[in-house]
């Protein structure tokens, strides 16, 4: 019982970081799999507007989720398999590098389309 986690309080809406401490995403929702014994097992963390939309609720939340689905070309949200998770504390730490889980399509798009075009984007601030 000492390792029990209250999902809403201690897992949802927490920051996910990779094994170097770099930001990955937020825990926007959690995937539960129904097994043969009828019990629900946590199999993955879900991220992105596809997962956050339904949590915002109402027409607005649906609009967020459906707009994202149209732009991303799929309905399945970003998924971080539980097998990648190393620990859950103040943040959720992954055992892998963030490029392995690859849930940041928007960041990559923004970087490649817009930010990379501006001079100085590769330079560390001085």
């Amino acid at each position, binding site marked *: 019982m000492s390792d029990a986690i209250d999902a809403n309080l201690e897992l949802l*809406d*927490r920051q996910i970081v990779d094994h170097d401490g770099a*930001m990955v*995403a937020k825990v926007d929702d959690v995937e539960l799999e129904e097994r043969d014994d009828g019990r629900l097992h946590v199999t993955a963390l879900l*991220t992105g507007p596809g997962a956050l939309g339904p*949590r915002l609720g109402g027409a607005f939340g649906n609009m967020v989720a459906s707009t994202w689905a149209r732009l991303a070309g799929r309905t399945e949200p970003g998924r971080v398999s539980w097998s990648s998770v190393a620990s859950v504390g103040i*943040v959720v730490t992954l055992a892998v590098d963030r490029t392995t889980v690859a849930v940041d399509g928007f960041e990559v798009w923004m970087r490649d389309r817009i930010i990379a075009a*501006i001079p100085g*984007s590769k*330079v560390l601030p001085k």
Partner: protein
Amino acid sequence: MKKLFAVALGILTAIGGFVDIGDLVTNATVGSRFGLSLAWVVVLGVVGIAVFAEMSGRVVAVSGRPTFDIVRERLGPRVGLVNLFGSMAVTLLTYTAEIGGIALALELGTSVWSYFWIPFTAAAVWVVLWRAKFNLLENAFGLLGLALLVFGVALWQLGPDWGQLWHTASTAAKPSPEPWPTYWYYAVALFGAAMTPYEVFFFSSGGIEEKWSPASIPTMRSNVLIGFPLGGTLSISIAACAAVVLLPAGIEVESLGQVALPVAVALGQLGLAVAILGFFAATFGAACATGLSVGYSIAQYLGWTWGKSVRPRDAARFHAVVLLSTLLAALVLLTTIDPILVTEFSVVFSAIALPLTYLPILIVANDPSYMGRHKNGALANTLGSIYLVIVLAASLAAIPLMIWTKVGTT
């Protein structure tokens, strides 16, 4: 020796950084109409911001979580989103006001119409946010902002009736022609100017930029507990100058020039030049802080990489938001709207956004799984709880007062 220097630098930064366009305009306006009868609000605001800045600083030093992370985590995504929209709107409004303030300071210094300065100031702020290191930003503008101490010097030079000043301040003696609702409207505005939400976003995000750890807590505390009060003293000296020069002459504050007028009267051209330098530094520094804070809040809500310690291409969404905000701020200002008016709205709306921002901080500062032995003691909790009630009252009173007094013009 180096440590002493670092502490001193931090304190100086806090003083110079405490006074932004909102504080400049609101304190001068209040001084010109109410004398020092609202000085108690500045004191109240300074204590309040010190309490919550210390708490959010302690939280980030111990847990590595900045304020907006905590807002979403404790309020949930729905209420957290309401807070995000509200905070971003207020911070964006403040950002717009600050960029306008830089343009006004340049106008004062060069006599070139501020409107023409807008594209350049917006671009300059953005370039600094794109390229400059966080430390450099804080220190440079913080130190230059000390030029505003000229207001203290000017007040001394003006040789006012100190006894009378003290009397109006300590008894909150409102000048009789001013109506009570207007008095309270300006109390809320002044409170909002002292406790603007972006200050805690910036402070706690800065803690991550500067890689604080629990060992940083004493330094952080001395920055807060000495810097903010000295900054508050600066605010009051601006109000006092206005009380001594503008109030008897019935001059209303409608421009930055009027804010500086008492200094010109007391110290001539040189004093005025120093004041303008101070205005420029304070507004430029605050523009950088608010511009970054718009990015910080949305990035921390959505879990993006953010900050100045990584290359811009590694925080692409964050920098896109900062760029977009700068463009938006410039466009709003190019509609010829008066930056002073934007400022007046930004401080009042700041007061409204306070409760949802401070409540999560107070809670997390008490959470043992976050804070371990650094969690709130009795003093922090007592003050924090009292202030929660005060900010709630100010937040609820803001809009009714704004309507009733027609934005303080009655």
